[in-house]
């Protein structure tokens, strides 16, 4: 809220962008003159295209970490816990058990990677991303469209050629890099008009959701109300592998070392992934992106959605990890997920659903 007020009093309406540069915002309607408004439906497709691509990446990350962990010596119970957690995170336990008798690595991976009937499988996400892209290919640069299309075609080819049986880790790595590529191509080629902003909103809203879920399930899996007393008493080695897996799944293992220069401690992991704005997959970073891109597309109806987004970001910016601990991490993340879901709904209502005359 503090942030909002300061900006509102800036005479020239200058905004600091995430990169630290200043640029004029809506000054004398300039940006409205420069970029054309876009179809609500187009914005909707772009938003979901980006979300599905991000979801595919995060699913690949999660699977990768579980798979890598399962190669380590550990109790079968711990391994099982990992796969169960993975299903829980995606709210798919029920669907899975409907199809398979028991939870095991092979079936969960098949279910989450190539099952066309599971709407959250990587295959389904890549297909949905591509279908959304195809619906608005005219609004994309040729490079962005071809990246989305080729990702889908290549993924099918890889799966057909048995990539899952050969080396799942390779395939997960490939999915991650296709997602990097599609984001990079978007940044490198798209006009930074509304279509760009809606893609960014999709990407970061989805990432915020996914990071929060990942944290929630991983802390849950330790069977400690986290910041309760249990954390330090268990086997140090299990803890190390557990938390380093969490970090690796968001490419933050080295980042953690660099930021904290210390042993891996659960509350620091939580701090890094929730409150560190420099960390590109942290909740606060995602919300920064959501807010700045939302501002760029603001319209006459979107005030309330912007306010809520700004408020959610401010809450993160001014939080302290100790407070979150005191509330209980699970409760905190559950509330965060609700607010992100609510935000997604608001964005749909204000921008994406065709409002009648």
């Amino acid at each position, binding site marked *: 809220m503090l942030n909002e007020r300061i900006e509102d009093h800036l005479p020239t309406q200058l905004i600091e962008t995430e990169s630290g540069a200043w640029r004029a915002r809506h000054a004398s309607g300039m940006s409205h003159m420069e970029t054309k408004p*876009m*179809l609500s*439906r187009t914005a909707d497709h772009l938003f979901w295209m980006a979300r599905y691509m991000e979801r595919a990446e995060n699913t690949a990350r999660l699977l990768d970490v579980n798979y890598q962990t399962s190669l380590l010596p550990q109790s079968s119970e711990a391994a099982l816990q990992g796969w169960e957690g993975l299903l829980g995170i995606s709210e798919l336990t029920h669907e899975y058990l409907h199809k398979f008798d028991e939870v095991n690595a092979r079936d969960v991976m098949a279910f989450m990677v190539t099952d066309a009937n599971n709407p959250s499988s990587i295959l389904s996400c890549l297909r949905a991303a591509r279908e959304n892209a195809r619906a608005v*290919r005219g609004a994309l640069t*040729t490079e962005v469209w071809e990246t989305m299309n080729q990702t889908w075609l290549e993924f099918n080819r890889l799966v057909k050629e048995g990539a899952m049986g050969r080396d799942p880790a390779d395939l997960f790595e490939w999915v991650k890099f296709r997602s990097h590529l599609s984001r990079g191509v978007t940044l490198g080629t798209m006009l930074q008009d509304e279509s760009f902003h809606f893609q960014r909103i999709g990407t970061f809203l989805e990432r915020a959701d996914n990071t929060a879920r990942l944290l929630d399930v991983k802390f849950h899996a330790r069977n400690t109300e986290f910041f309760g007393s249990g954390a330090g008493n268990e086997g140090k080695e299990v803890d190390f592998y557990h938390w380093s897996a969490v970090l690796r799944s968001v490419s933050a293992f080295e980042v953690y070392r660099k930021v904290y220069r210390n042993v891996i401690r659960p509350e620091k992991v939580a701090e890094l992934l929730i409150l560190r704005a420099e960390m590109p997959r942290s909740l606060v970073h995602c919300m920064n992106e959501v807010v700045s891109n939302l501002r760029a*597309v603001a*319209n006459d109806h979107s005030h309330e959605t912007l306010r809520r987004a700004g408020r959610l970001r401010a809450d993160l910016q001014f939080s302290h990890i100790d407070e979150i601990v005191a509330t209980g991490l699970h409760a905190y993340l559950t509330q965060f997920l609700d607010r992100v879901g609510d935000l997604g709904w608001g964005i749909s209502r204000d921008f994406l659903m*065709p409002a009648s005359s």
Partner: protein
Amino acid sequence: MKFFDEMHASSAHADPQVRDHYRTYSRWLQRQPGELMASRRAEAEMIFRRVGITFAVYGDKDEDGAGTERLIPFDLIPRIIPSHEWKEMEKGLKQRVTALNMFLQDVYHDQAILKAGVIPAEPVLHNAQFRREMMGLDVPGGIYSIIAGIDIVRACNPDGSGTYYVLEDNLRVPSGVSYMLENRKMSMRLFPELFSEHRVAPVEHYPDLLLDTLRAMAPANVNEPTAVVLTPGQYNSAYFEHAFLAQQMGVELVQGQDLFVKDDFVYMRTTRGPQRVDVIYRRLDDDFMDPEVFRKDSTLGVVGLLRAYRAGNVTLANAFGTGIADDKSIYPYVPKMIEFYLGEKPILQNVPTHICREPEALKYTLDNLAELVVKEVHGAGGYGMLVGPAATKAEIEDFRKVLIANPSNYIAQPTLSLSTCPTFVERGIAPRHIDLRPFVLSGKTVQMVPGGLTRVALKEGSLVVNSSQGGGTKDTWVLEN
């Protein structure tokens, strides 16, 4: 049957005489190893897939389960048209499309041509394609078919020379222009050296011409008209083309649900509220355009569009009701239209046509089914037709019953010996039958880019070039002098 080959004056294998305009190309082709051509073809296919230049076939599923998207096969060997032939054809096309637009203006106003008895009134007025709603309505510039695609074939004369014939006019929503543009892009990419050896007339400016034409046809008093492309959606067989044209022109690609009519003006729903739309390049048939007037169950159109149209607040490209001029039952009268409206002799020939609603013509048709091509007057896409020489006896007898039951639904034409062009098929280079669809844009003036889309029947001996029935396409070169 003798065929006119576009490349070779004599098809004798020992001594194929290459026509002048193919000489440079033929020499080049002879130097290309077969494997190289095969790898170029594979490259083209890969690129078309990646770019997503695909079309959907109704009710089909790919063998790999990848959905219903198919590639239209692209043949590496271009169809080359010499400059003088194109100049004549261009004149003929402008003449023909001008007359067809005058006919549309006339039948929806005074009906002078019917009153003069040049065309019988009955097949016009009692035709499902005749839109009573259009009576007395003025459209900008009197232009109904702003975008027309005219199908042309070349047949062989007894002396071995060839003559171009207009096979049919497409005045509603002709498609294929995106393939014309993509094919050119592809051959320039695969064979850049050929373009330094030939002066090939460019086609790449088509989207600019189209946008200019659309904007020029905007309702009067609109300063900076907003044009859009209206598509039935991404599962339509021509969706690639709709998206392609919208992108190339830099206009929005809209679906019916994106538009609404308020106070007789058309708006699109944008992230910043409603925005006025002045020109709609619609790729949707009349029937689906406005559930208030036409098909009530259509979810693809826009409620109230006809009201806005009647009020003169939006231009449709093409207008409602153009189907009356390209109906196969009207086609035989086009040469008469040209004489009636322009006082000129037709430059392009019509195929001699028997109108089965006329008893004599029906008798002749029934007597000669095995030699004729019989077409449904409202059919399109190569469906519902009989190709006599290619049909079995049983197929002919079945068709005879259908024809007798409803003669006025059919016309018959001699089986034209469509010209052939060397084509790179599985077993090497062999002649295959082709046609040509130039695209004619009518605005303040009538314009077109040189050439058009050449379609090729890839099956040996087949005369059906439609992409839905195993046809492919070729790049089409008009040589500049």
